[in-house]
């Protein structure tokens, strides 16, 4: 575990360190063990995906790292600080499945929202939002409103917004979950490029095996009830560092190998697995269904 107390650009030590983490929800139907004994370490600049069936607690884990949820036991440190301190210091940027843009703000003003809240001057804000709009290829939409953009474009704005404070850590909860497959692949490629440019570490929650394989250095495969880590698949051993990948990889045999490895790890952990011949099996519910993940949480 890192004990460094540096805020700016930590190049050594872990971006996220989770130790013996437990999370129990008290619901009307009794207690639900959402997470049990989770140990994860994410190095600076590393891309780690959390994958697993609904109810495995992957979103909850991400929310605990973001200090949007409190763990019942265990420790979470982000760049050596506790999660609350890291949130207050704006050490991470976050994006969700919905873009969460404010409808009454222009695209540029949405990206500038975190900067505005933290007292950044108008000129610096505009410069930063122009830079980020360029990064996500939406420069000409700066003065539009969110309802004038397609879902994929809105999600790109949300990602730009999560980068506004130049965080060294990105927390992403199924950011492409609601997009169609074509847009999704384009966004993945774009995210690889953005990560290469910013050098940020990423914790990425997903339902999609190919998505996890394409984006990640490591894939943390989780199993439900109680949410536990099933296995960690080191994708980068075969595919190379995540931030150097290109679209060509999607048709590479090594990519299919990584997909198979994740798939097998996933199915070994779920009770409904055991269809060894199901080579074309779809990875289970995607999209809005992931809300089941959080159904057990108190509102």
């Amino acid at each position, binding site marked *: 575990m890192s004990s460094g107390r540096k805020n700016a650009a930590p190049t050594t030590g872990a971006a996220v360190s989770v130790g013996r983490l437990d999370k129990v929800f008290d619901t009307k139907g009794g207690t639900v063990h959402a997470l049990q004994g989770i140990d994860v370490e994410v190095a600076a600049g590393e891309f780690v995906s959390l994958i697993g069936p609904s109810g495995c607690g992957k979103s909850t884990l991400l*929310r605990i790292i*973001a*200090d*949007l949820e409190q763990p019942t036991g265990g420790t979470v440190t982000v760049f050596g600080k506790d999660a609350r301190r890291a*949130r*207050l210091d*704006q050490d*991470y940027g*976050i994006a*969700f499945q*919905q873009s*969460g843009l*404010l*409808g*009454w703000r222009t695209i540029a003003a949405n990206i500038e*929202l*975190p900067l*505005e*809240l*933290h007292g950044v001057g108008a000129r610096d804000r505009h410069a930063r939002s122009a830079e980020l709009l360029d990064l996500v290829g939406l420069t000409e939409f700066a003065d539009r*409103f969110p*309802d*004038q*953009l*397609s879902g*994929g*474009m809105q999600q*790109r704005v949300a990602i730009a917004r999560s980068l506004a404070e130049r965080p060294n850590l990105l927390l992403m909860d199924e950011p492409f979950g609601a*997009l*169609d497959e*074509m*847009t999704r692949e*384009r*966004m993945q490629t774009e995210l690889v490029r953005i990560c290469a440019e910013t050098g940020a570490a990423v914790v990425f929650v997903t339902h999609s095996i190919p998505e996890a394989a394409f984006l990640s250095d490591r894939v943390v495969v989780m199993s439900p009830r109680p949410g536990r880590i099933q296995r960690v698949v080191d994708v980068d051993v075969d595919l190379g560092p995540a931030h150097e990948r290109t679209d060509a990889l999607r048709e590479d045999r090594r990519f299919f190998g990584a997909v198979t490895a994740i798939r097998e790890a996933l199915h070994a952990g779920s009770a409904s697995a055991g269809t060894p011949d199901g080579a074309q099996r779809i990875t289970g519910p995607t999209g809005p269904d992931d809300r089941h993940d959080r159904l057990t949480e108190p*509102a």
Partner: protein
Amino acid sequence: MSERAAATRVAARSADPSVTLVPPPRPAGRRGRARMALMGVLGVLATAVLWELYKVVVPDDGVLMAGVRVLPRTSDIAMPHTWEMVARLFEPVTRAAGADPLWLAILSAAGFSLGIAAIGWVIGVVVGLALALLMQRFSLAESGVLPWVVLSQTVPLIALAPLVRNWGSKLQVGPISWENWMSVAVIASYLAFFPVAVGALRGLQSPDAIHTDLLRSYAASWRQTMVRLRLPASVPYLLPALRLAAANAVIGTVVAEVSIGLKGGIGRMILEFAQSAGGDPPKSWGPIFGAVLLGLLAAGSVALLGVGLRRYRRGEELA
């Protein structure tokens, strides 16, 4: 195979699905607004035509069934002709020399009432917003205050009026002493604050979890969350509440003028002219038109406010 089919295919392929622009919502054009105004005028005319038609069809003494009058009288005393009502507006109020024309007297009374209603509306909006903020901030306040807010509206105005007047008459701050018009404004505000409190609370609570999560991740304070998220999000809920509050303030003013006995306003005028209805039937309808005008003016001012806050109602326009 035509070239056109091939061209379409190429175009379809080159269209980037993530860069398809949704056209901006079309604002109600000038033509649309003119149409609405025309419909409004037609509505008023249709009402007048119905009125006259009823007078023609139904006998003077109404329709009686088994000794019970099921359709009201249509005599010129009960239902004067519409043109007589209009013509009466341009005659002097009384036969006394130098009396103002009726329409002027009505307008000045309506203006007087509108001023009081506006003060009542402002007080009501301030109190309603304050209550909504309190209830949003502390859930304990919501469960403790909201039932009382609802209960407050079950108290009849007639019962309230003398109480307010009595309490007020005991107040004296320096040279300023309590006056009757203040009692009327307070009663108007009592009716106005309710929709604001309830509507604003709903509006302040309307942001999705994703938005509150996002602001929490930005370490935004309660005040920042209020200013950047909750207040703007509440506008679509607040505007109908403000309109309702305006209508309530007008009703409260008219009723309170009567029960407090305040002279100079439209409420008192309705009462006075109704008493003289026997000798001059069309005259008593004048202040009723005045009250209608008052309500339209009050609601219209709030609509103007809505135009100013257009940016916060984008979702509404799309829906």
